[in-house]
């Protein structure tokens, strides 16, 4: 019996530099955020799988801070596997992030905690 403990196990994987999401064995559907059962079916046959890390920006905002505090990006990313997650697009100006932009996940150290962020990829023509 291997009970899934979603948040704890996600964070343990992340600490090992692995970005893991879940897949329901019977339906094949991917699930994020991690949970103990698949939405709607209630099936508990979820397994951890490595995310491809490929995604597309679905929505974006810039959280404005009073200088000298830097403003930062908050975006919703549609993962190639289907689920959507909140994240941050890094490496470009926060207000240069565009909806539809292809992005790739990377795990960074965020104040001592591992965090999944996304780099903008060159736009396909």
């Amino acid at each position, binding site marked *: 019996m291997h009970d899934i403990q979603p*948040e704890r196990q996600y964070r343990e994987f992340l600490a090992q530099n692995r970005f893991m999401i879940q897949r329901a064995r019977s339906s094949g559907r991917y699930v994020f*955020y991690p949970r103990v059962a698949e939405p709607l079916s209630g099936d508990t046959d979820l397994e951890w799988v490595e995310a491809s890390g490929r995604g597309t920006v*679905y*929505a*974006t*905002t*810039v*959280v*404005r801070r009073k200088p000298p505090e830097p403003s*930062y990006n*908050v*975006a*919703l990313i549609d993962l190639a596997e289907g689920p*959507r*997650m*909140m*994240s*941050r697009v890094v490496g470009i100006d926060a*207000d240069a992030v565009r*909806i*539809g932009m292809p992005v790739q996940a990377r795990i960074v150290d*965020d104040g001592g*905690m591992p*965090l999944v962020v996304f780099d903008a990829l060159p736009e396909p023509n």
Partner: protein
Amino acid sequence: MLGFPSGRTAIVGAATFGVGKSPGFEAMDLTVRASLLALADAGIALRDVDALFVAQPQDTLAGLSFADYLGLRPKISDCNRSGGSAFMLQLEHAALALDAGYCDVALIAYGSNQATASGALVQSSKNAFWDAQYKPIRPISAYALAASRHMHQYGTTKRQLAEVAVAARRWAQLNPEAHMRDPLTLDEVVSARLISDPLGVRDCCLVTDGAAAIVMTRADRARDCRKAPVYALAAASTVTHADISAMPDLTVTGAAESGARAYAQAGVGAADIDVVQVYDAFTINTILFLEDLGFCAKGEGGAFVENGAIAPGGQLPVNTSGGGLSYCHPGMFGLFTLVESVRQLRGECGERQVAGAELALAHGNGGLLSSQATVILGSHAS
């Protein structure tokens, strides 16, 4: 008859208290004052209240606290926590309970002293770990993400968002109770300091104190009250997600579903509604809800609100109190949309009165576009 008891219960009392700044009062003091005013408005004695529906940001057991404060022994005490839409759900549940004879007089009440107590929006909820890691400003960033998507998909502009804020201000200028009544221009809204792009400070609701209350009873008893009853014709709600990352489509809210069910209950459509109140926590809300409630097609909300179309003298009167953007916003605005609907249907709105208003729609929003609840009220039972 199955389903919502359309026209079989009514709002017979409605009041607000302490809108704006109310230093020296605790939240429950304000709630009680509004409640007593609503009961006086109805001509119903406090001791006759046997069902309490109270939701307050700082007090998760507000229904119990209210009973304690006034020495009541209610048969029903409900402390709904679905956010700013809580009061629409409470009206729905009160109507069902009244119609079933579980209770005879229901009081729905709310109050907050957030402006004088903390100067900021008091929230009792927070993002789950998954979204919280990325430090969105709750709740603004969630609405900003929805606005970004609407702008991308439909070409909605910041100037169209600003139309919503300016319309709200123009209504507020006709409402002596409104907190913000200074003139406001489109340019001022568009160029206001950004908080979470594309939303600036004038796209955001106010932070004020204030309390509101309504009293409901069955239609037969309602006819003996002080003022003409305002009948509950429909109430419907749904939940589509909790945090914004789980919202299925950021351009379509659950109002599409709650609205459709409410129209079916009341046997009316959007074209029949005389006056509209929607929970305008942010300017994008009004555009989303007008679309989802069928006042215009999906994606056309930006164009729909242009040229003062929802302002005084426009084609559709929306948020005639001035809304959360300019009237008041003590944290959970839903109940104020019901009070304003009652006042419009009774013809009590003075300069901002919508002539001949007989059918009103009030729409509440809770969480991060998460809970949507629509109420239709009418000056006739059917």
